[in-house]
């Protein structure tokens, strides 16, 4: 049964969203409200449509049917380049551009001065001395933090995170999760909302204010991790690490 996710802050509203795939639809009949505050985790098995949903919200893909609005405005009517700065995205693979860390940050903000760049480094727990280092020579965890800093440099209201820690070791994962909790906190001056894709039940429980469980392209359940831990569906319970 599809549930409605109650939100107090206006964010994304999806109605009857469908995205076709090669063999089968990637998303089917998705009705969902995704608030712009706190951390919403999209959980579910591999191939359940989590990443497809995230790409729609950054307008890297478009719907085949249905509508999406952002703060009440149809997504298709927004200025796509401005929208992508307002709703940033980090990917599973930390992809940095050739050049230094500073060069990478300036991809997002061309006139970024060195002091602001150093602040961004500190924000993601990187020493400012990293600014002059070649981005491609950093470890996976360091590169992912550069990608996050780069996205934060655009001044987003929401960051879409597509399994950003799945290729990282536990230590790097913890740093990134702490960062999300810090930036997402209501006490943070930035108060960035997160829509975070994860298939790690432990991470879902650590991060999520709200959880959306997807299954075969459909919304299987929405709620808190705690509430969904006793959901009748085994698949939903498994997604949030609930009782088997």
């Amino acid at each position, binding site marked *: 049964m599809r549930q409605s996710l109650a939100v107090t802050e206006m964010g994304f509203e999806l109605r009857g969203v469908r995205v076709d795939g090669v063999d089968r639809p990637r998303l089917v009949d998705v009705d969902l409200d995704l608030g712009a505050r706190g951390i919403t985790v999209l959980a579910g098995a591999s191939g359940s449509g989590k990443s497809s949903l995230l790409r729609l919200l950054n*307008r890297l893909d478009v719907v085949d049917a249905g509508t999406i609005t952002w703060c009440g405005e149809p997504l298709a009517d927004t200025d796509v380049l401005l929208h992508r700065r307002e709703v940033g995205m980090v990917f599973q693979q930390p*992809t940095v551009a050739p050049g230094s860390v500073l060069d990478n940050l300036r991809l997002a903000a061309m006139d970024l001065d060195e002091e602001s760049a150093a602040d961004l480094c500190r924000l993601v727990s990187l020493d400012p001395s990293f600014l002059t280092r070649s981005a491609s020579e950093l470890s996976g965890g360091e590169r992912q933090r550069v990608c996050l800093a780069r*996205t934060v440099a655009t001044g987003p209201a929401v960051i879409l995170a597509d399994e950003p820690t799945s290729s990282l070791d536990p230590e790097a994962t913890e740093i990134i999760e702490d960062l999300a909790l810090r930036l997402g906190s209501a006490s943070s001056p930035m108060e960035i909302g997160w829509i975070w894709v994860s298939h790690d039940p432990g991470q879902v429980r650590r991060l999520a204010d709200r959880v959306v469980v997807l299954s075969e392209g459909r919304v299987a359940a929405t709620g808190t991790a705690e509430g969904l831990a006793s959901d009748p569906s085994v698949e939903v319970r498994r997604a949030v690490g609930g009782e088997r």
Partner: protein
Amino acid sequence: MNDLADIGLGGLAISGILIAVALALSLTRRLGLEKDLIVAAVRALAQLLLVGFALRIVVDDDDPLIFTWIWVVLMVIVASFTVRRRAPEVPGVVPLALVSFTAAAIVSLGVLFGLGVFEPTGRAIVPLAGMMVGNSMTATVVVARRIVAEARDHRDLIEARLALGLSSQDAFAPHLREALRTGLVPQIETTKTVGLIALPGAMTGLILAGVEPVEAVRVQVAVMYLVLGSVATTTAVIALGLTNGLFTSDHRLQVAARPPSP
């Protein structure tokens, strides 16, 4: 015609000895290339003889220039389909190549004939257009293939740039630059070393035909500038067309340029 350029049928037959040298190498070293060598030699002779007869009409100063321009159009069409054969993975390359070669012909032949560098006769238009199309074709294939490869191999980075709010032009700019450099650098290197390693074809032909070497050099240099200008024009036009085709108007990488989602 100058006697130097008339080698006669006997001379042509004697030059065939050089094919025998290549055949001997293939036989003694068991390269298995004898059949290919003979086919290549005979095909070259037959094709060029046919072209030669056709050119008699096209370059004859008494015939109207319309035949000459038809010949140029045919060259452009054949070259466009050759680009598709050499770069089969590039979508919609034929119309783009047609536009590129046409643009290059208008720019380069326009300068050479419009500004009076050469007289607009069939004898000048056909060989110059041939050199323009021939050299541009190679560079066009290189650039077209490289653009498609860049979009395929660096899609993560391109989408990461798009997700930061960069326009599709900005997101792809470093890759476009790389592709254009790949197409242009060999031509620039050839231009730099011309005469040091090998004497270029047009100049060699003119000298064999009895033209004063310095006069031949002047023609050759104009030809090399023509080639450089044409290569730059064709690669720029095809790059622009292909890049536009990679992205949608709302700055998304086209589905064909991405792998299917898991």
